[in-house]
Structure formats: C-alpha cells, structure tokens
C-alpha cells in the first residue's frame, strides 16, 4: 500500500518535472508564433493570449513578403543543405568503404587523418578559407558554402559509416565477387543499400547544423543573391528591429522549415542519437 503510494507520487513528480521543462522549452516558440499573427497593439497589450478575431493580423507577413527575398533565401538554404548532404554522403560512404573493406598500407593512418576533423572545428581555418575563396573567385557563391560544409561533415560521416560497413558480411561481398561484380558494383549495389539507416543518421546529424549556420554565410556568401535563410532573417530582423510585426513574422518563417524537417525526421534523429552512433 505504502509502496504503491510512493510510486504514484514519483510518477506525478516525474510528469510534473518533464511538463515543466517542456513548457520552458516550447514557451519562446509559442510566444513568437502566436504573436506573429496579431496586431501591433495586441502584441503589446496581451502578449500571451491567442489571436482573436479582433486582434488577428497578417501585416507582419505582408511586410516580410514585400521587403525580404525570403523565397530566394529559402531556395539558397535548400540548395546548400541538399548539395552538402549529397557530397557528404557520397564521398563519405566511398571513403568509409575503402577504409573498412581494403587492407592497404597507411589504412590506419588515413583513418586517423580523416578523424582529426571530428574534434577540430573548421572555423579555426576561416581566415585562410576566405583567402582561398577570394583567390578562386568562389566568394559569394553557394559552391563555397557547399565545399566548406562537405569538408566539415566528412570526418564524422566517414567515422560512423565505416563502423557500420565493417558489420556488412564478407560472405555477401565475396559472393558478389564470384558472380563477377566489380568493386564499384559491390559498393553501389550490395553495401550502400545495407547501410541506408546509417546514411540517414549521418544526413540528419548534418542537416540541422548546415541549415542553421550563420558564420560561413556571413563570411563567405553575404551577397544578396546568395544569402541563406539564417543569414537573411538575421539581416532582415536587424533592419526591422522596431517593426515588431515584421520581426515576429520573419522569426516564425525561419522557425517553420526547421520545424517541418524536425517533424519529418525526428524519429530518425532520435534513433540515430540513441543508437549510439556518436559513441
């Protein structure tokens, strides 16, 4: 009896603690989204209430659409993120396959060399990266960003993917070889399909930091035509500081794509983290 009561008390306490933190975690997002749909007066008068018929307004979104090139920014972010992920996955898987499948001199050393970048942030090299991009004429191109993010993502991708590729059975690959498949076909048609879950994990891990990065867009591609959504909303909000409707709407528009991605991929992301892919 006593025991049952304490356990119920524990459950209640557990839910209370989790609910409290959930509220803290979601509160700012809630406040921003809700107020972006209100009139300026209502934003200040009742910041915590939902928009009603009297206080509903889309004026902020109209300003954003009229002033900022959000569609272009969104498109740029999409190109950069998808492009970088493609190269990270393709090049990362190829290198991981070479490291996990073949014994050659310097294999260990190559693995260590590629793993260096897991702990050392690429930002340290920014001064020389900018210099190089200026010299090659890649400043203010999306290519510069894709290159940087690919280099940034490769070390962890190679590390995770080669762990998984070691588990692919040798018998399967050797059967392929006996059937006359060459090494490229074994990689593309036997190994890649088997490590798809690991590829998804790598993609999800890289997607959000690339989409959200401010540092490299600011330094390598600040031009109007190449602004990413993160940089674009930063600049826009900076210019419209006093226009609360516009700022709140811009923030909401910046939250939306990430939230959609998260809803689509959260299962993959959480499974990736909890399966110990980053141990």
């Amino acid at each position, binding site marked *: 009896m006593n025991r049952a009561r304490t356990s119920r008390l524990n459950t209640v306490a557990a839910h209370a603690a989790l609910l409290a933190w959930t509220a803290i975690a979601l509160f700012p997002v809630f406040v921003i989204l809700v107020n972006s749909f209100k009139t300026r007066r209502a934003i200040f008068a009742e910041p915590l209430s939902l928009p009603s018929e009297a206080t509903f307004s889309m004026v902020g979104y109209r300003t954003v659409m009229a002033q900022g090139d959000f569609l272009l920014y969104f498109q740029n972010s999409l190109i950069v993120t998808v492009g970088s992920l493609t190269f990270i996955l393709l090049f*990362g898987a190829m290198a991981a396959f070479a490291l996990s499948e073949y014994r050659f001199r310097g294999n260990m050393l190559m693995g260590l060399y590629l793993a260096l970048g897991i702990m050392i942030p690429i930002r340290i090299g920014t001064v020389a990266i900018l210099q190089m991009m200026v010299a090659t004429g890649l400043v203010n191109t999306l290519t510069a960003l894709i290159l940087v993010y690919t280099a940034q993502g490769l070390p962890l991708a190679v590390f995770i993917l080669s762990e998984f590729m070691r588990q692919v059975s040798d018998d399967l690959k050797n059967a392929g070889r006996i059937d006359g498949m060459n090494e490229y076909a074994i990689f593309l048609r036997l190994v890649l399909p088997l490590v798809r879950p690991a590829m998804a994990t790598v993609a999800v891990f890289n997607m959000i930091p690339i989409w959200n990065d401010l540092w490299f867009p600011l330094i390598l591609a600040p031009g109007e035509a190449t602004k990413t959504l993160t940089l674009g909303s930063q600049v826009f909000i900076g210019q419209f500081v006093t226009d609360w409707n516009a700022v709140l709407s811009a923030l909401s528009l910046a939250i939306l794509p990430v939230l959609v991605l998260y809803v689509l991929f959260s299962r993959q992301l959480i499974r990736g983290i909890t399966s110990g892919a980053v141990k």
Partner: protein
Amino acid sequence: MAVRPRFHVAVFLAPAVLVYTAVMIFPLFNTLRLSLYARGGTGPVFAGLENFRTLFGDPHWSAAFWNALGNNVWFFVIHMAVQNPIGIGLAAILSHPRLRFATFYRSAIFIPTILSFVIVGFAWKLILSPIWGIAPSMLDAVGLKSLYAPWLGKEDYALTTLALISVWQFVGIPMMLIYAALLAIPEGVLEAGEIDGITGWAAFWRIKLPLVLPSIGIISILTFVGNFNAFDLIYAAQGALAGPDFSTDILGTFLYRTFFGFQLQLGDPHMGAAIATAMFAIILAGVCLYLFLIQTRLRRYQF
C-alpha cells in the same frame, strides 16, 4: 579472397580526401602560417611572432583577449554546471521504464536544439525585453517583479543570461546521450542491485551514474569544443560588438571583429589568424587533456 586492392581504393578515397584536405586541413595550417605574417606595403611580410607579441603584450589587445577568454571560460562553466545536471536529470526521469508519453517529452524538449541561433537569440531578446514586458509581467504574476532587470543590457548579467539561453537551447543533447546510455544498462545489473537493497536514488547514484560517466565525458568535450568556437548566439543577440561594453565578448566574436574590422578599426587577417591560432591551441589542449587524461581513466564496462 584476396582482391589486389589498387586503383579502385584510390578512386574510393580520392574525393573525400581531396575536399577534406583542400578545404579543411590546408586552410587550418595556412591560418597558423598566416599568423606569422603581417601586412606590408606590397604584400604580406614575414613577421615571426610579432602578432602574438601584440596580442599578449599590447595593453589594448591583451585586455581584449583576456576579457574574451575569461568570458569564454565563464560561458563554459555555466554550461557544465547547469546544462549537464539538467540533462542528466531529465534523462534519468525519461528512462524510467513505465513512464508514459516519454516520446512526446523527448521530442518536445529537443525542439530548441534544432532552432538556429538567430531565432533563439532574437526570440529571447524579445521575451526579456523591457519594452515588450513578457518577462517582467510573468515575474509579476508570481510576485517576483522586483527580481526583473533588463538582463541582456546589464554588464553584470548579460553573459550569464546568454549562457543560460544557450543551455536552454542545447540541454537536449546531453539529455539524449545520457538517456541512450541509461537505456543500455542491462536489467540484470539493476536487479542485482535491487537484491542487495539498492533501489531508487541509491541505485541512480551508485549504479547508473558511474555507468554513464563515459557519456558525460563525451558531452563535456563536445560542450568544450562547441563553447570555445561559439559565435552565432552572441552575434545574433548582441551584435559583433558583443555589448554592453564587450561584457559578452567571447573568442569567436573577438576573432570576427579583428578579422573583419568594426567601427574605426580596419580588419586585419593576420591578427585574426593569430587569434584563430590561440583558439586552436586552446581547443587542442582541451581535446588532448580529455583523450589522454580523462578518457583513459574512465572505466568502460562491456555488457
């Protein structure tokens, strides 16, 4: 079956190695090299350690550097002291086997982590702003209005406030990693403890926590590296000047200002490279300390 691995190995390795070397490793060392040069009339001239002498010797530069480093250390201390205990606590509650709605809590608590610093910085700036008044009116509702201050605008509080905002954003990561580690503890170990009378809190402190120490180590080093090249949140919330009066300046914003210039000071890539070199040394020292001292001493248990 010994396939003679020759040409195709190179084909498989080449793209990754080329991109990684050209865009990451080479610029990294080139940055270290550039820190030894200074701007001359016709181009960079070799200056030896002159930039570092300026950085540590010149009163203005060294004051700015130590201020940024000190702030960065404080930023890190807050993360370690607040983010990790909250993360561990949430994970411990979540890992309770019969807890309902665990997936919902997990997903919801992780949401701030996926938002960009720009969103997080501005959202909190608005909420804490005295103009909008959400924070003061909420404190008023619980009778604590006297506690309110425009935290982000006060030199004494701004850095701590930003660190706590960053904690709010990233608490999901330690939560997830510890949660995964807790789930990996086999039932048998806990049952053996139960038979010996170790349950509840005692089981947490004496069985579970020691078993997840390696994960806590990984989280600590991830936090360390992340904090010492942080930039975005401070820039989004306080601008490149890291106000008020540089009280929120950390190494990342200091590097950015030096590299690109601000107000009357011109940007200087070589001084920027010198600061980047200092950051590299700090991060490298931290990572080595972790790899050689901490990780080798943590006992790992194989189940």
